[in-house]
């Protein structure tokens, strides 16, 4: 066994390396940024800029460490910078740290692992009591306004908010039990 490359093999270019890494970590980065930023219009810009900064700094990446964590570190700073320019507050350092802890627990550091963990989320959704899984479907899949949901279910908007929050709490507990959330 030798480590020498065959003559026809070449080192992948930085661009190629970056494309592989970007594809592997895009989903996870986007989830992280959504948790930090939450403003939908800003998430897209922050994602794009984070990736661009990562590309420019790729040579600085320490390959012995997690690329996903490095990317999220850049994402945090970019998010803060964007929020500052819009005079918004996204999260304080403690909040960022705790979101990062959840990300680390969820981080498989490659795309396949991310999809596996999303499968765990599917399992947890299936285990929700009907009222709550119905709420998840209406809010996240159908993206119905809370007011519409409230009217259809003969609930107040406040009750709808509480129910969806409870659904998320149950999902969080389920994901923790399965070891994919801090």
């Amino acid at each position, binding site marked *: 066994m030798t480590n020498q490359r065959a003559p026809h093999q070449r080192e992948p270019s930085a661009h190629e390396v970056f494309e592989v890494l970007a594809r592997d970590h895009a989903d996870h980065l986007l989830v992280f940024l959504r948790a930090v930023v939450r403003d939908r219009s800003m998430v*897209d810009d922050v994602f794009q800029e984070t990736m661009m900064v990562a590309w420019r700094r790729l040579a600085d990446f320490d390959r012995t460490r997690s690329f996903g964590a490095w990317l999220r570190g850049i994402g945090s700073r970019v998010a803060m910078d964007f929020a500052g320019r819009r005079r918004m507050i996204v999260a304080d350092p403690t909040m960022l740290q705790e979101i990062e802890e959840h990300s680390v627990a969820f981080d498989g550091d490659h795309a396949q692992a991310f999809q596996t963990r999303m499968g765990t989320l599917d399992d947890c959704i299936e285990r929700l009591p009907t009222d709550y899984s119905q709420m998840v479907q209406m809010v996240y899949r159908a993206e119905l306004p809370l007011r519409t949901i409230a009217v259809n279910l003969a609930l107040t908007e406040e009750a709808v908010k509480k129910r969806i929050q409870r659904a998320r709490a149950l999902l969080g507990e389920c994901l923790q039990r399965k070891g994919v959330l801090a």
Partner: protein
Amino acid sequence: MPTTQRSLGMMSNNPNQSESNSNDAPEDRFVDALLTHKFTETTESMDARINRVLRAVESQNNRNYSIRKWQWWALPIAALLAISLLVMPTTSSASAVVRSAAKVASKSVDRQYQVVLMPKARRDGEQPPPILATLDVRDSQHMRITIHYQRGRTEIRGRDGETSWEQRPDGSAVIADHDLPWPRWVETPDGSLLVDSMAAMLEDLDDSYDIVKVDDAEACGQTGLLQIRASFPTSEPALANTSNEKVRRNPAERIEMCIDPKTNEVIRLEMFFPSNDGPPPDGQRGPRPDGPRAGGERGPPPDGERGPPPDGQRGPPPNGHRGPRPDGPRAGGERGPPRGGPLGPPQSISFERTDTKSFPSNWFNAPANAVEEIPPQ
């Protein structure tokens, strides 16, 4: 397990915020983000995101080696982008507007700007009065600035295409070395004026600045003009990739421009400088091991470069005369660092276009009484 509950959310009533109304517990936010991702993103949408990034990377690489050529042939494209900015504001199109504005500003057209410099507060907390000036420009070789001091005194400096000249407050006038470069920073008793062609200032706003269209530029007010903000980003890469020379030329941390969308002319430009005083060690800038500086703080030009003088350290010479330089003349007419070393630039400088549209043909010439300056022995 983190269970902190805080009220740190985005601004309320934000239509872009998730309607799911996640609370401010990190875990709740994270699960909300997972659910949003699960139900809104598809393989195709993620591919599209990545492809957008890769196209931008490709574009950046190409731009790095062909920027000069690009600027020539792509100007019509930049103009089109400027128009599209009105309906679809993006960072890149805002940059195109600035490039287009730089092109317009580089044309040989007479124009005048009112300049207001706000000096930094002195160390004792006293705020010096603003310095007022009028900057007349025909092109980068024909400029004339009239600096209005207190008690009605004025000082005029000009460049006529071949020589630079100065008319002092006492009325005497001198012609400097013919190859004396136009001083970008004009020293005054109360501070320094950044004086340059609008085109040169705009050309400094390249990739090292984040250029975006905004709706709330302090400099523009409710004018209906296109409002562009260039911010020096606080990110490590931006700091690392910015040359010291560029920072010396233009150390502003934020520049706000009000641009006429029809003509791409800069109607008003205001530069805001960082509040910190000390220059970075040996004038070098680079990535900071502890991450970006808060607020994008940046030091003033390093020692040995032309830069603003120390605030409050220079007083007007008796009778307005300048004495010989203590350190003798500079090769090529360069100014050395002000005595006592450089301090930070002023708080802000604004340039506002006036209605003046033409100057007499000899407006930029040296005064008739101007004499050749004899360097001190």
